[in-house]
């Protein structure tokens, strides 16, 4: 489990990230394009007459693409806006402004039948396998519900067969068709959630912290299942998690969010091996490594807590906690720019490779 040393190609050669409006991924049109997405939740005062006295800027201008067949990870700490981004992509929330284009079509203003049709193509897996399954329904009817909603597999026999096939695909015993959620363990419940999400053969699967409620040994079962399904169905997946090791394992590309913004996005190897944004570096340095043989280096710890998204710092939002911050960072907001490693980072003074090693990033290439 050693993490040290090893010859790596020079950073400049490890280019893999292309996105943004001008730089399309070479594999054709992306499945999802998110542009300047904003979600502000108003803070109100008063009971009868509610006045808005401010806003929580949960997502504040986020742009990225998801290429067909890839797994994009979104990481960040509590309150960084990663789950809100996912809910906006799913149209579970309405965006304040900005666009989400799915197969080229802006979906942020779709309604009625067209929205319902869209929902067949995108499905979600939730964090808590206990609260995301209706305890009064049998597993068969939970997994079969998407068919019922969209009027598919009408015959009772056909639907049962389809559900049992799905149960088999995710590693559940099809004979348990008539059992209730409480008869299953946490890992099995999460498999039920996966089966339900796959029922309509979606083009996009959004997994929001799918394994954080599970024990380690069970977590690995679900991660392997998701990876197998992703490979065999060619699914496009957006994978949201706070566990950086899990995201590393699952994702081709990774976006790091801080206070409603993407601070760095790029291919997994480049982002973990050669992080350029100081926040990415700090996150990676903070991960405890299950190997006491790794010499304990002095780690640069971030001081303080994440500021409130209701009142984020000016310009670069990380400047209040950033060890490299200078005056420019307080006055001018940095844009996502291509770095020498192929990732794109929003930073005026990106980390050098020496600094990455110095702050104790154990995945440094």
């Amino acid at each position, binding site marked *: 489990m050693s993490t040290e040393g090893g010859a790596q190609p020079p950073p400049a050669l490890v280019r893999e990230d292309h996105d943004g409006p001008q730089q399309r991924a070479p594999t054709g049109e992306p499945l999802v394009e998110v542009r300047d997405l904003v979600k502000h939740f108003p803070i109100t005062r008063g009971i009868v007459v509610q006045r808005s006295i401010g806003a929580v800027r949960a997502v504040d201008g986020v742009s990225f693409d998801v290429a067909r067949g890839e797994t994009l990870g979104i990481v960040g700490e509590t309150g960084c806006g990663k789950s809100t981004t996912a809910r906006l992509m799913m149209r579970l929330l309405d965006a304040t402004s900005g666009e989400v284009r799915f197969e080229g079509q802006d979906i942020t203003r779709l309604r009625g039948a067209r929205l319902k049709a869209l929902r067949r193509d995108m499905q979600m897996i939730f964090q808590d396998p206990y609260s995301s399954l209706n305890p009064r329904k049998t597993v068969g009817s939970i997994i079969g519900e998407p068919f019922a909603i969209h009027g598919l597999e009408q015959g009772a026999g056909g639907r049962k067969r389809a559900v049992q096939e799905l149960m088999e695909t995710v590693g559940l015993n099809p004979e348990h068709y008539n059992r209730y959620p409480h008869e299953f363990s946490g890992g099995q419940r999460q498999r039920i959630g996966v089966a339900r999400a796959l029922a309509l053969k979606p083009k996009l699967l959004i997994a929001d912290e799918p394994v954080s409620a599970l*024990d380690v040994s*069970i977590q690995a079962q679900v991660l392997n299942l998701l990876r197998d399904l992703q490979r065999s169905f060619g699914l496009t997946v957006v994978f949201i998690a706070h566990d950086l090791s899990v995201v590393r394992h699952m994702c081709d590309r990774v976006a790091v969010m801080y206070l409603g913004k993407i601070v760095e996005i790029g291919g997994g190897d480049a982002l*973990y091996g050669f992080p350029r944004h100081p926040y990415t570096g700090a996150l990676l340095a903070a991960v*405890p*490594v*299950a190997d*006491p043989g790794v010499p304990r280096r002095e*780690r640069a*710890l971030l001081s303080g*807590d994440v500021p409130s998204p209701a009142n984020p710092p000016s310009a670069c939002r990380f400047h209040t906690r950033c060890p490299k911050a200078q005056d420019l960072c307080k006055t001018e907001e940095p844009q996502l720019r291509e770095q020498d490693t192929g990732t794109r980072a929003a930073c005026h003074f990106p980390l050098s490779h020496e600094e990455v090693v110095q702050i104790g990033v154990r995945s440094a290439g």
Partner: protein
Amino acid sequence: MSEAPADALLRVEDLHVSFATEDGVVRAVDGITYQVQRGRTLGIVGESGSGKTVASLTTLGLTRSKRSSISGRVLFEGRDLLALPEAELRAIRGNEIAMIFQDPLSSLHPFYRVGAQLIEAIRVHRDVSAKQARTRAIELLGLVGIPDPQRRVDEYPHEFSGGMRQRAMIAMGLANEPKLLIADEPTTALDVTVQAQILALLERLQRELGMAIVIITHDLGVVAEMADDVAVMYAGRIVETASAASLFADPEHPYTWGLLKSIPTLAGSREEDLLPIPGTPPSLIRPPSGCHFHPRCPYAQPDHSRIDPKLEPLTGDPAHHVACLLAPDLRRRLWAELQAGRMPEQALAAVGLQGEPS
């Protein structure tokens, strides 16, 4: 851990804890023995329901009830805590042994100011004036790195962030300079950068105050960074215990292998699949016969469902104990195969064994 060095601060001997429930008797802790040396850190690792929390709560007498039955000995500086009456135990709890919990929001009282809760913790055990206790409370908040403690001492828990609440909990635990701090998943509810701060804080405080720590966690990374010694629990028992260096370098128990191989690492190869432990943890009402791990163990042999393994020292490393029925040389070869990237079935074939058909 059969020999008892005189300086062991805490020594738990053959502890059994069971609870009577509607469904039957839950044997949450099923005969565990371990010890904690002064100034050292013991990590207890296990999944939900392995008994790691119940074992520690029992140390502090927090599982005493009509429905529980407890046997064994918990020797703290030679005194058996299990035999102490509640009043005497209360003098030790929060004073010589302190505990911090996973969820700082539900362990702090929402109605009282943080300072008032700290002052209470101090005055329960110390005959000091409210004013002196308040000065001490401010000092403690400063010690655990809460900025502006003079002002913060008068705030309510909801005004603190998650990381600051956990710092306040630690301050409360440290109020009476305990000899032993039991930390039950102290960072599980926290973000990774805050977790790093809290772990660094615990290490600093241990250096400065010389207390022993028992850290209970499911996170092998946290254990590797914090612990001097590690005990791995499964289904109410300790299946392996060793120094941290030895446990991570040469793990002996198939369950420990399973844990190590099922976590993704930051620098690991993406191409490698994780090796999950098949199945789910057993019921503690009707635990499996023989080795409790045998139904999930890829290397189990037919007689493992009949024989109950004892936690025994290794010949090469007497501090390393393991409860496994496989022969030591066989275990070493299996682990070498797994380290070389083989699947459990391939490893079995390579050492010339057959798995128990399940």
